[in-house]
């Protein structure tokens, strides 16, 4: 599992590559906290290359969403693959973590 990020003018994009499981979840929290602490509270987590997420990964996304909102921003997800979509739907979290087709589209409307 790998995370990398890039800060753009209007948002920061965090790329998640690999399995977002209990091993990777704490790393995602670290990366997003670093991005938010650096002053970018509008965060897109790009999941286009994440083919697996479990409840620990989901918990980390929720924690990151709270961190972004507490800093006055928001966290959105993009490029959701079928397994991740399934986990979001079965836990009813698709209503809280809105999925956008691409990172560019996530903050494209505001």
């Amino acid at each position, binding site marked *: 599992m790998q995370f990398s990020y890039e800060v753009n003018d209007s948002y920061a994009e965090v790329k998640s590559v690999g*399995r977002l*499981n*209990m*091993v990777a979840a704490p790393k995602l929290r670290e990366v997003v906290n670093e991005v938010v602490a650096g002053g970018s509270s509008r965060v897109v987590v790009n999941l286009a290359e994440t083919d*697996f997420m*479990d*409840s*620990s990964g*989901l*918990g*980390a996304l*929720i*924690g990151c969403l*709270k961190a972004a909102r507490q800093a006055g921003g928001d966290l959105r997800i993009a490029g959701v693959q*079928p*397994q991740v979509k*399934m*986990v979001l739907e*079965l*836990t*009813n*979290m698709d*209503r*809280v973590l809105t999925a956008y087709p691409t990172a560019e589209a996530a903050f494209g409307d505001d």
Partner: protein
Amino acid sequence: MTEVIAHRGFHGPSNEEAIEAIHNELDALWDDASFVPDMDRMTFATAVIEAAANIVQHALPVAEKPVEIDVDISVRPTRLIARVSAYNAREPFANDMQASMPDSDAESGRGLALIEALVTTVTFERQDGTNTWILTRNT
């Protein structure tokens, strides 16, 4: 009784490396049983990893021997079966067996509810210091 078409297993210390190893065993299992539909693979693999992660995160040793995790997964003609066990483990706390979805802002506690949503049956057994979750999914 019913034929086992493909089988994979893992046994080792209950830690993060075990989770990655079990993921790899699941991937290898689907290579051996390519007829299993994508939807069944996805749901079943998620349930197995959730059960294994639950052990790694919550299982406490019953004595000085550390907890070990054992996973045995088989593909049968119309059914996927996984036995996910914690050896040398205490009986799980009632809180760890919570099977309803928590509030939307909760950052943990969805694992067992998710497992129940993913498989056809979930059975828990405890025998001689071993906790075993048996997950089945009809295909």
